[in-house]
C-alpha cells in the first residue's frame, strides 16, 4: 500500500500534486463545516446584517447555550439536551445488538456451504437495495401487530433489523476469509457452534467489529426518519429535536442557534471517528486473520 510515508520515493512534482489535491479536497469538504462553525458563534446582529460568509464581529457562545438548553422544540423549551440522552439510549444498544447479530449471521452464512446459503445471502442482499421509504408502511403494520410501535423497544428493533443486511454482508465477507480449519479445530475440541463463535471467532474479529460498529453508529445516530416514526414522543432522538428547533415557527428564525444545534448533534459521530479512525482504516484495509 502506498502512503504518505512513501512520499520520499516519489518525484517532487508528484508529491506537490498529491498534496495540492489532498488540500483542495479537504477544503471542499470542510468549507460548509467552517461556515456553520463561524455562524454558530456569531451574534444575531451580525447575521441580520446579511453576510453569512464574513467573520464574526465578536465571538459569543450564547447560541450554543440556547441550542443546548433553552431552544424551543415545539411547546417544550429545553433545547436539544434531552435528545442527546435519547439518542445515546437508542444508539448504544442498537449498535451492540446489530453488531452481535450481524456477526453471528455472517459467521453462520460463511460456515454453511450449500446452495441454499447462497440464495439466502442473495435474499439478504436484496434488503440492501430496497429503500427505507418502501418498507415503512409494512414495518409500521408489523410493529403495531407486535405492540411495540412508537416505543423504545420498537425503535431499537427497527434499527437492528434494517441494519442486518449490511452488517451480515460485511461480517460474512470477513469470515469467508477466516480459514475453515480454525472452526473445525474448535469442533474437534468439542466446542459447540455458539461456543466457537464466542470464544474463538469473535476475539479475532476486532477489526471488522470496529468497522461495522462505526458504520452503524453513524447511521443510527444520524437517522431522522426512523426515529421520527418509530421512537414515540418520549424517545425522540437528537436529530428529530434538531429539526424541530430549526422548523420552530414561534418567534423569529435564529440561524446561529440552529447551526450550534446542528454541530451539537454532530459532535458524537466526530468523536467516534477521531477516536477510532485508526482502527477503522486498519479494519477496512486488512482482510482476515494472520497467523
Amino acid at each position, binding site marked *: 500500500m502506498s502512503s504518505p510515508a512513501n512520499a520520499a520515493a516519489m518525484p517532487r512534482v508528484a508529491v506537490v500534486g498529491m498534496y495540492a489535491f489532498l488540500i483542495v479536497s479537504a477544503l471542499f469538504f470542510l468549507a460548509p463545516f467552517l461556515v456553520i462553525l463561524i455562524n454558530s458563534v456569531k451574534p444575531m446582529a451580525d447575521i441580520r446584517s446579511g453576510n453569512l460568509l464574513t467573520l464574526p464581529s465578536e465571538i459569543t457562545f450564547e447560541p450554543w447555550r440556547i441550542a443546548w438548553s433553552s431552544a424551543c422544540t415545539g411547546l417544550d423549551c429545553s433545547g436539544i439536551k434531552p435528545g442527546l440522552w435519547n439518542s445515546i439510549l437508542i444508539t448504544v444498544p442498537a449498535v451492540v445488538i446489530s453488531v452481535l447479530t450481524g456477526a453471528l449471521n455472517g459467521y453462520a452464512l460463511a460456515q454453511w456451504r450449500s446452495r441454499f446459503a447462497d440464495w439466502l445471502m442473495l435474499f439478504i442482499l436484496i434488503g440492501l437495495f430496497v429503500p427505507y421509504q418502501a418498507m415503512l408502511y409494512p414495518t409500521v403494520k408489523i410493529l403495531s401487530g407486535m405492540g411495540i410501535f412508537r416505543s423504545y423497544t420498537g425503535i431499537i428493533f427497527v434499527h437492528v433489523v434494517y441494519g442486518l443486511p449490511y452488517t451480515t454482508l460485511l461480517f460474512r465477507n470477513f469470515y469467508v476469509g477466516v*480459514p475453515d*480449519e*480454525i472452526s*473445525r*479445530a*474448535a*469442533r*474437534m*475440541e*468439542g*466446542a459447540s457452534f455458539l*461456543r466457537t463463535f464466542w*470464544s*474463538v471467532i469473535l*476475539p*479475532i474479529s476486532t477489526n471488522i467489529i470496529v468497522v461495522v460498529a462505526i458504520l452503524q453508529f453513524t447511521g443510527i445516530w444520524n437517522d431522522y426518519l426512523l426515529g421520527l416514526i418509530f421512537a414515540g414522543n418520549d424517545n425522540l432522538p437528537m436529530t428529530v429535536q434538531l429539526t424541530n428547533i430549526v422548523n420552530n415557527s414561534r418567534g423569529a428564525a435564529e440561524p446561529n442557534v440552529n447551526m450550534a444545534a446542528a454541530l451539537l448533534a454532530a459532535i458524537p459521530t466526530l468523536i467516534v471517528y477521531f477516536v477510532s479512525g485508526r482502527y477503522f482504516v486498519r479494519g477496512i484495509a486488512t482482510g482476515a*486473520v*494472520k*497467523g
Partner: protein
Amino acid sequence: MYNISLNKIRKTYGDLTILHSVEMEITEGEFVVILGSSGCGKSTLLNIVAGLDTCDSGQILIGDKDVTDLEPSDRDLSMVFQSYALFPSMTVRRNLSFGMEVARVPKAEREAKVAKVAQLLQIDALLDRKPSQLSGGQRQRVAIGRALVRSTGVCLFDEPLSNLDAKLRTETRVELKKLHNDLGFTMLYVTHDQVEAMTMADRVAVMNKGRVEQFAPPQEIYEKPANLFVASFVGSPEINQIAGHLSGNGSLDIGKTHIDLSGYAFENGTRPAQDAILAVRCEDIKIVPPAAGHITAQLDFVELLGADALAWVLYHGKRLSVRMGVDQARALESEVGLQFDLTKASVFCTKDGHRL
C-alpha cells in the same frame, strides 16, 4: 481398545464419487499413513474418520464402538491440521487447554496436563505467547501438543509437515515417530510425500481416485506393489516399465527379444498368455556388456547424484533408469546390456494393471 475399522466408506458430491467403498482395518497402536496424490480423497477420508464430514454410506468403528453418527468430540480422537489451525486470539497455554475447558475439566487437572505435554514437546517457554509470535515449526509443535493433550489414544494428522521447510520437516518427522513409539497412540497420517510414508509408517495405504490400491508395510509396497499404479506412484525415479507379451511358456516377448521369467514368482503360480508389463526398479538392473543381458539399450545421459549415479538409457524409444556407482557411470559405453534382477521385478497385466 483403539483399533479403527473403516467399513465400505462411500462419499459423493453430486454425481462425483470421491470415495469408493474404502475398507481399512487399523490395529491399536499402529502408525498408518494414507499416501496419495492431490485430490485423491485423503483429506475427505480423514475428515470422515474425524467426524468433521459425513459419509454417504459405510461404518466407522473406533475401539469396536460404532462412531459413524457421533460428533467429533465424542469419538475419542484428536486431529492436527495442515495449517495448524491454532486459535489466533488465545495464548499457547489456552490453545492447549481450550478443549478441556469446554469439557469442564477442573483447573488443576488442566494445568497439570498442559505442563506435561508442554514439557514433552519442549514448548514450555512458549506457553504465554500468541500463535502469531511463533515460527512455523513452533506452531506445528503447539498444534501437535493440542492434539496430544486431550488425546486418549487416536491421533489424526492431515499433512502436518507440508508447511515446514525441508530441514524442519525431517526433524519433526523423526520426532513424531519417536513420539509414537513413546506414547503408543494409534495414528492415522495423511500425506502426499512418499518419504514420510516410507519412514514413519507401520503400514501405508496407497490411495488413488477414492480407492485404496494397496494397504501394506512400506517395504512391501515398494518391493511388491499390488498393481501398476502403486508401482509407478511409489519410488523415485519412477519404476522402469517394459511392455511385452506374456507367452504360455513363461517368457515375456518384446518384439524379437524373449525374457525368461522363470526366476519370477507369479502371484498364484498361473500365468495365462496375455499382454503384460515388466516393471523393474532402477537399482535392480545391472549393466553388462551389450548382448550379454536381457536387453540391449543405448546410453542417453548420466546424472551424478553424489552418493551414486543414474544412467538413463533408451530402449525402443523409452527411457529407462539404472542406478550404479559413480565410477561405473563415468566409464559407460554408448551401448549397454541390461540384466534385470527378476526376483525383485514385478509383472503387471496390461489390461487392468494388477500384479501377475
